[in-house]
């Protein structure tokens, strides 16, 4: 009877051991666990890297400015600390200034340089310090702050939206400098001939620019920029993008269909979206060329201005060679009776 008596506690011990001592760690992340209150642990027989201030906030800088910072660290362990690698992410460089082997109790320095470049807004960059500290083999430092622009432009781009053919539309943009007390806009140049831009108001150094999309009969999407030259020392040249669409009776997207290089025997399909911009406009018929291209209306949303989703299928029997096809969209529109959509690709 003794055996069963002994076996039970042995079994329990075995199970407990298996559960608790074979658990593996979950975390895949490198953690810079920084216990600032830890004293030098003389009982630990390995190096211990410690940064008093691993996170540096540079506050605000302007575009194209650089920031430098020195991180100081200490070996709080009992063995020699070896810095193996200092790795940074884009926009940041870092290098160890002192020797890469640090004796117990001694300190080292890592210098980081961040270049703002053309970035703007809040940024946060990581620097990973790899060492032979077994508890923290990868120590994460961060450098963060805000890159501000000298010129405050609102909005930062112009969306004309969907504009009917023959319609004229104007939008305004405000621009001011945060550093130039006597801020001036020296020159304004729109990139498209059908766009006008002029200063309509100046108040307390803030310029209001009116940007006008003149009557344009070319149906389709448009895009470009308003180029400004200013007396800002930091941003002497700036571009304000604009985009929109001149809409006829119908809008189609995309304007062309690209199948690319297709292996013979493969069937492919793409979709086009057709939107009626006026009531009573509808698709009468769809024709495609060559004959191995077919279409199917897969969705029609009935409303005052119906929408269509059309599948354009490249048949597996397509002959080898350049596709060079076209889709003809016939509608009851007087200004857009036929819309052509090119189909581009090659069967190999």
């Amino acid at each position, binding site marked *: 009877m003794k055996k069963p008596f002994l076996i039970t506690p042995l079994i329990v011990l075995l199970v407990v051991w*298996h559960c608790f001592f074979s658990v593996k760690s979950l975390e*895949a*992340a490198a953690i810079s666990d920084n216990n600032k209150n830890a004293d030098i642990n003389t009982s630990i027989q390995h190096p211990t890297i410690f940064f008093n201030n691993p996170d540096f906030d540079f506050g605000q800088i302007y575009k194209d400015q650089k920031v430098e910072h020195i991180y100081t660290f200490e070996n709080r362990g009992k063995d020699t600390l070896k810095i193996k690698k200092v790795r940074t992410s884009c926009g*940041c460089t870092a290098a160890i200034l002192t020797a890469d082997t640090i004796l117990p109790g001694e300190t080292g320095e890592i210098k980081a340089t961040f270049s703002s470049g053309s970035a703007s807004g809040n940024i*946060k960059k990581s620097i990973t310090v790899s060492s032979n500290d077994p508890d923290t083999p990868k120590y994460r430092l961060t450098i963060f702050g805000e890159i501000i622009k000298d010129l405050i432009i609102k909005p930062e781009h112009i969306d004309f939206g969907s504009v009917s053919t023959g319609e004229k539309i104007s939008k305004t943009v405000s621009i001011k400098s945060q550093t130039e007390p006597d801020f001036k806009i020296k020159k304004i140049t729109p990139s498209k001939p059908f766009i006008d831009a002029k200063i309509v108001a100046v108040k307390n150094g803030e310029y209001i620019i009116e940007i006008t999309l003149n009557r344009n009969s070319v149906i389709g999407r448009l*895009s470009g920029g308003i180029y400004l030259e200013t007396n800002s020392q930091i941003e002497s040249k700036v571009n304000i993008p604009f985009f929109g*669409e001149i809409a006829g009776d119908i809008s189609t997207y995309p304007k062309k269909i690209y199948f690319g290089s297709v292996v013979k025997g493969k069937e492919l399909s793409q979709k086009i*979206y057709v939107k009626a911009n006026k009531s009573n406009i509808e698709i009468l018929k769809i024709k495609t060329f060559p004959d191995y291209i077919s279409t199917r209306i897969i969705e029609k949303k009935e409303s005052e201005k119906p929408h269509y989703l059309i599948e354009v299928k490249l048949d597996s029997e397509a002959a080898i060679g350049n596709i060079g096809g076209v889709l003809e969209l016939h509608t009851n529109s007087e200004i857009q009776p036929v819309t052509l959509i090119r189909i581009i690709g090659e069967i190999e």
Partner: protein
Amino acid sequence: MTRINSKISVVKAFVFVSLLLILSNQGCNSQSGKEPGDSLNKASPSPTIHVVFTGEENGYLEPCGCSEVQLGGFPKRHTLINHLRGKDENWILLSLGDLPGKVGRQDEIKMETALDALGRMGYVAHNIGEKDLNMGIDLLGYLSQISNVDFVSSNIVDLDTSAFNIKPYIIKEIKTEESILKVGILGIVSPELIESAYLDVTVVDPVLALKPLLSDLYDKTDILILLSHAEMEESIKIAEVYPELDLIISGHLVDRPDLYLKKVDNTYVIPVGEKGKYVGKITLSTRRKESGEDEHVNSSSPAIETTPLDGKFEDSSEITMLLEIYQERLKDEELLAQVFKSDPPSNLTYIGNDDCAACHNKIFKHWEETGHASAYETLVKAEHEYDPECVECHVIGLNYFTGFETIESTPALKGVGCESCHGPGSDHKETLSKDYGKVGIENCEICHNDEHSPHFEFEEYWQKIKHPAEEK
């Protein structure tokens, strides 16, 4: 009889111990989780799904630059996803948002290409980020119609276009060996990131917007995932308010996602990184509703990985072909000719390499032997010679009048020529001024920046191109 009884007792004890060990092993694994990557091929005691997540591509369809071993790109991503699918079909692919980087026709084509790529890879949801919104509601609407990926946003409302096909949430069913799991996918964008005064959209506070949706979805789904296009701090706050969320994919402005994983109670908050350099993967399991208690899913620790898309991954031929179409479209639409040009500084003009060679022949011959001289041909070889974003650093003065226009009209301005570094040479040609053309590291860093030239070291690279003084 006593011996037989003893043997039976020992056998019973042995069987009992074995059963205990098996059960305890399962219990331990569900509490401690598994090493990253180990779970994918092992059977789990409860139904599991695998989630892949990406985002914040910011216009990077592929690594930008010509250096070796750069991270990212849709072609490599597709290869990784195909590899994962080869092991297990049950993957949910999610996109956090911000496919484009800037505003303009090239970014419109990029976004279309990126969505096509996501569709081919089988993504089920694309969350709307602020850079997606910047493309304009009309274009976004068109893309939402033709894309094979569902657009999701739980807190963008009152969209002023009927073309926009956007869902407040998606429920995706995943058939596992054990059961059919229903995964609820929601998406938000932080109002802090949006200048909504200039957009025809209303962006609701995410915490307010999510409340009714989560109430509705909680009983209809087994797993709840939020695509949170916001900074980590905001995403963590959402996790604190809504512990019923199993996973929050987040991380606006996080460069190294592997360093910023967080767990808030039972909710994992994981960033995607930036520029498409990383792919995140997580295996989620659920033991929901089995016990009848309100037991939160994923009290077990899932396997999490953030994989850098590096040289280990070959480029997928399908997506490479898609990027070739993208380059073809740039050529087709003549975007190079539409590059905005301004006047060169100080009313100078570019004169071209041949004019410089007339006087500085020795230097010119030295230059011809450097990589700078063949910079344009490098681009042609890579079939990117019609991409304005690439051409800018491989020719002289693309962004200025009298600078490079096309290879046919301005052949003397191809390559990283004399005036690329020294500036327009018209005045120097006329006056032979000696103060022309001083250069420093800042001239190099315009093109050799961290993204295009991550291995750039000025001292090392300078040795490759510095030219001797011209003989007098």
